[in-house]
């Protein structure tokens, strides 16, 4: 089934029920479907066709939720872009996937305009009005597009068409677009809502960026269920989020370990302080076992799911909550209708207790990376049958005697910070672009809130360059979560005997933050 059908079905089943609460703005399912149909028709009229890519460069907002479904209504492919993306990377993405249009917000117009200046491809831009109520020259009014007649678009698309491209940090230093069809999304969403035991009366709080697949799927699953999504922009003030949870009767609370750490360092919380919450989920990185125990004390009636996944197949495993006491350090078993196997270098399953690479098989596995056959071939391998591919995750796991999975580490040097993946090479490329830096190496160091913090060791060619200058340079060229927290300036970088800069030795030298 195509994903925009989820929205039509929910609008038919629950027309007057609240679908979306985004800040002060609330929409019913009928209103959500109507707004998406209007914007979808406007996009089609402007020339967006079946299979065209359209970027959604927005923060967690009402407009972003509508935009995603409007793009699908037009038969096109959406690509959510993190709102802290800087112009040079956005320009790279524009030239990489050649979008027909970018949908954005007034506050992100300066970055958007600068990216389009740098890019070879020149997409249309739809934006909300600035504070003065006007739009820049050549920019389409998103407000006007949302007021277009809701004429259905006869795009002729089917469910094996591409639905979305989600860019992920690449080990070569360039982002890669993970290709997912409508069928992939339906498979992943169905599997997850099954084991989480979601219901159509769930009220799900999403404070995770919807440019990140964990956040994005809160929207997609809510639409599939006909439940209610409470979309928030930031977890900066957990108390304000708790007030929202109480006011809206939130039942589902998706977390990453950084959010859990922020909740657990609060001083005045009482067990049962958020009685409406029926379940919590965690993914992106493992929760420390003491955090699991404390969360269970604070949410005594709620189910807690420890999960593991990667954008390339959305989700791989979950630990049934009943198993938490027995194996709190496990991320569980394959999600429904998929297989997860730990294999050795020869591709054969290893014995329990032995470490190997986790391989995923199922209808949720991506189609590959957009126009990047080399990177695709590294991840997608021949499967059991001649017609299928399986996903080599690049993550090392072991199982216990009963087949439950335990994360061991990465095969490569990807850093997990605040739940997001960062390729050290992407940060190093930005450091090397600084005229005063001769050499740089980037690694992750343990951090109690972030999981890992990004740390850089640099050798400067200009003695006037300070650590602060280096961080400021990074803030201008990298998304917030990629900016190093620690920069050490050194005379030389740690090297292996063969003279190669060693990320591992750098990691051993750099001290944990705080």
């Amino acid at each position, binding site marked *: 089934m195509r994903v925009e059908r989820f929205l039509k079905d929910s609008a038919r089943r629950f027309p007057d029920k609240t679908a979306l609460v985004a800040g002060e703005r609330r929409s019913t399912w009928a209103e959500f479907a109507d707004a998406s149909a209007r914007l979808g028709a406007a996009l089609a009229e402007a020339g967006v066709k079946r299979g065209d890519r359209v970027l959604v460069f927005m923060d967690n907002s009402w407009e972003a939720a509508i935009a995603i479904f409007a793009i699908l209504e037009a038969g096109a492919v959406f690509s959510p872009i993190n709102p*802290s993306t800087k112009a040079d990377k956005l320009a790279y993405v524009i030239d990489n996937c050649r979008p027909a249009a970018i949908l954005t917000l007034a*506050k992100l117009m300066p970055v958007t305009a600068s990216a389009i200046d740098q890019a070879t491809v020149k997409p249309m831009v739809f934006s909300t009005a600035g504070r003065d109520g006007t739009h820049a020259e050549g920019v389409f009014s998103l407000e006007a597009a949302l007021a277009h007649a809701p004429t259905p678009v006869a795009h002729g698309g089917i469910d094996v068409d591409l639905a979305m491209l989600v860019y992920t940090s690449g080990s070569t230093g360039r982002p890669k677009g993970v290709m997912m069809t409508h069928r992939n999304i339906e498979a992943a969403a169905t599997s997850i809502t099954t084991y989480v035991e979601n219901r159509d009366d769930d009220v799900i709080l999403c404070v995770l960026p919807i440019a990140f697949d964990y956040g994005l799927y809160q929207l997609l699953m809510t639409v599939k269920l006909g439940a209610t999504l409470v979309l928030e*922009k*930031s*977890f*900066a*003030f*957990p*108390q*304000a989020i708790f007030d929202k949870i109480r006011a809206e009767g939130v039942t589902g609370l998706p977390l990453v370990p*950084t959010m859990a750490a*922020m909740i657990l*360092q*609060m*001083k*005045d*919380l009482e067990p049962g302080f958020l009685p409406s919450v029926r379940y919590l989920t965690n993914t992106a990185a493992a929760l420390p076992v003491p955090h699991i125990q404390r969360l269970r004390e604070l949410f005594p009636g709620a189910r807690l799911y420890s999960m593991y996944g990667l954008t390339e197949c959305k989700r791989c495993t979950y630990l049934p909550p009943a198993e938490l006491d027995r194996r709190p350090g496990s991320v569980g078993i394959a999600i429904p209708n998929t297989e997860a196997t730990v294999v050795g270098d020869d591709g054969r399953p290893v014995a329990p207790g032995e470490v190997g690479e986790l391989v995923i098989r199922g209808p949720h596995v991506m189609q590959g990376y957009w126009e990047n056959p080399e990177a695709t071939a590294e991840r997608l391998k021949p499967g059991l049958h001649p017609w299928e591919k399986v996903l080599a995750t690049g993550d090392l796991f072991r199982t216990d005697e009963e087949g439950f999975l335990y994360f061991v580490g990465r095969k490569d040097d990807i850093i997990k910070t*605040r739940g997001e993946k960062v390729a050290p090479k992407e940060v190093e490329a930005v450091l090397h672009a600084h005229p005063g830096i001769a050499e740089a190496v980037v690694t992750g160091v343990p951090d109690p*809130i*972030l999981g890992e913090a990004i740390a850089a060791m640099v050798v400067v060619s200009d003695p006037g360059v300070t650590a*602060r*200058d280096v*961080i*400021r340079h990074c*803030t201008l060229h990298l998304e*917030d979560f990629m900016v190093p927290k620690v920069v050490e300036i050194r005379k030389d970088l740690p090297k292996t005997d063969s003279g190669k800069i060693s990320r591992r030795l750098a990691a051993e030298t750099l001290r944990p933050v705080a």
Partner: protein
Amino acid sequence: MSETVQSIVKDFIIENFRFGDTSFEIGGAESLIENDVIDSTGVLELVAFLEERFDITLVDADIVPANLDTLDRIAAFVERKMHGDRAAA
């Protein structure tokens, strides 16, 4: 007084979240979060700074946008806190 608190906090923000970029400007009534001046974990750093610099103690219920999301609100909150603490002492 509020001028002083506000400028101390602004200096802290420039130093820690703008990495010394003195060209940075934000109005006293503009949201620090909405304008991406500080991120979610940055609030924890801000709270630690306010506690130490102004010798005040923040309880969980204090850490809300109404007290901390703009320079004006932070200044007013810190002053209330300082006077409150003194009255209680």
